């Protein structure tokens, strides 16, 4: 079986989903069921005391692995605090680090993300940092104990696809951690492409949640992820950046 391993946990689905932006939260449950997605992101916020809303957890099946994000954090310290709150609230030890203080493009702060990852990994969290696709950052994250890396395909919510393809390829071909492409994937073909390139998984929120029919959209993404993964495993992609070291072809020349 083709298993995705993150930290000490194993998953058969390579499609991660999110709970943001749904018009009707009741669609989350069938969305998860139909797409097979086993990990879903959630966010933490202050309760609106005047008008308390339904807690999102009520709409997620207990069997789903929760991936609380640290959205709202503007530095490492805030991210650490949010992660602890989530764990104490019983969300498990998975956390997606998201440190953003750029209000214009919502690009993550890689430096603060590395700091937060280091602290949280020591505290026993399974840390999945969301980053700008930079191979150097990925290597540093490996060193400080991240359990996966989540480079972005294009800016959050842009649905622009893999605008960072070359950078993602570098990461995928050199990472020792699972690479989950996050943000910017707007179409199943984008997801397929990411998987064909050798990404370990993709995270899709906006494109599913804001589709006319989120459940069908989730199914489409799920199929696309599977197709891309199969293509990758079948080695359909022959344009690898470096020639593969198989048996030597020029040995007979006695070079």
């Amino acid at each position, binding site marked *: 079986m083709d298993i995705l391993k993150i930290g000490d946990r194993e998953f058969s689905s390579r499609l991660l989903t999110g709970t943001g932006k749904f018009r009707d939260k009741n669609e989350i449950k069938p969305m998860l069921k139909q797409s097979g997605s086993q990990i879903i992101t959630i966010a933490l916020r202050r309760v609106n005391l005047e008008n308390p809303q339904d807690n999102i957890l009520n709409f997620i099946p207990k069997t789903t692995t929760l991936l609380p994000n640290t959205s709202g954090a503007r530095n490492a310290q805030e991210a650490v605090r949010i992660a602890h709150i989530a764990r104490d609230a019983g969300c498990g030890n998975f956390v997606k680090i998201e440190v953003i203080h750029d209000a214009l493009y919502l690009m993550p702060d890689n430096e603060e993300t590395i700091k937060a990852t280091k602290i949280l990994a020591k505290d026993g969290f399974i840390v999945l940092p969301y980053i700008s696709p930079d191979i150097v950052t990925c290597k540093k994250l490996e060193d400080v104990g991240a359990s996966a890396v989540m480079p972005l395909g294009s800016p959050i919510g842009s649905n622009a696809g893999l605008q960072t393809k070359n950078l993602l390829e570098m990461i995928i071909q050199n990472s020792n951690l699972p690479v989950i492409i996050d943000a910017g994937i707007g179409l199943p073909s984008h997801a397929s492409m990411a998987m064909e390139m050798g990404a370990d998984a993709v995270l899709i929120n906006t494109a599913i949640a804001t589709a006319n029919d989120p459940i069908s959209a989730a199914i489409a993404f799920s199929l696309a992820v599977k197709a891309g993964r199969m293509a990758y495993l079948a080695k359909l992609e*022959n*344009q690898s950046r*470096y020639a*593969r070291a198989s048996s030597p072809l020029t040995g007979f*020349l006695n*070079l």
Partner: protein
Amino acid sequence: MSFLKILKEYDDFDFSGYFANVTDEMVLNSINKKSLDKFDFLNLLSPRAKIHLEKIAQKAHEITVANFGYTINLYLPIYVSNYCSSDCLYCGFSKKNKIPRKKLSLEEVEIEAREIAKSGIKHILFLTGESRKITPLEYLCNVTKILKKHFSFVAIEVYPMSQKDYEVLFKAGVDGLTVYQEVYDKELYKSVHVSGEKSDYKYRLETPERGAKAGFRNLNIGALFGIGDIASEAFFSGLHASYLSKKYLGCELGLSLPRINEAEGGFQPNCILDDVSFVQIMCAYRLFLPRVEINISTREDADFRDNLLGICATKFSAGSKTEVGGYTVAKTKPQFEISDTRESDEVIKRIQELGYEPVYKNWENI
């Protein structure tokens, strides 16, 4: 722009100066590019690139499998005449050589064709020396018609002709044209093509284009290695193929790498293309031109050919006879000595053992 003009741009190009500045990084960069420009091609032909030959070969293999799969096209040559009115210093058929001359009668062509067809191979290349008088257009048409009864793909390697004559041959059933420039360096060209029609450099250079315009869907070109500077000759061959494939999108381009072998006439090659450089050039062709056919004849020995198959060769002759009537009727002197002397079924068996599918029939014009 004609290819002659393109060649002119390199009249003052300093190849050794360029090669002296090629770094490992440049070579590696060129290997890893998805589409290579002519400077990448040069980098791969540079002496520097030899250090990275294994990497280049791996990439060449990858591209070949992506474009052709694990297949190899098979063909056989049939020599129908060795009369020649030209005098090329390197060739056994040169008019200066006192050798037995022979031209197959149409009946003999039929007998040879029937024998060759027993191999099951449906692609044939028929060759003559370059004598317009002894093997005129009409004869070539008649040979074509006979061959077409036994083979689905017929290519010619005869004297260069006008577009009009090619159109006649195309109608008679010719599918492909092989014409080697032999030497791209103009001065050297003159020095080895002493007399006869072949001494017209420009007419020969433009021959593949006339063939393309006449409708042939397969063009096979190349330099004969051993006369001019190896790297620049290879460079111009690749450039020529690239020019033709871009201009005539409907044509399949093929490149051969003939290197001077022992032949009648006692020609001493100016240089020797060694095996390492051979592989380097072949791979450079592949990286520069991912879809080009790479044709390896029986001039090369069996082991060497088997190894090239795993890298990026896509076309083999198998069980070739290079004498006129060599398969059945007569024994004359061969144009060149063949090195892979295995019969076609042996070659095919070996191809299969190596995990490749021999293609007996790839094309039929209907």
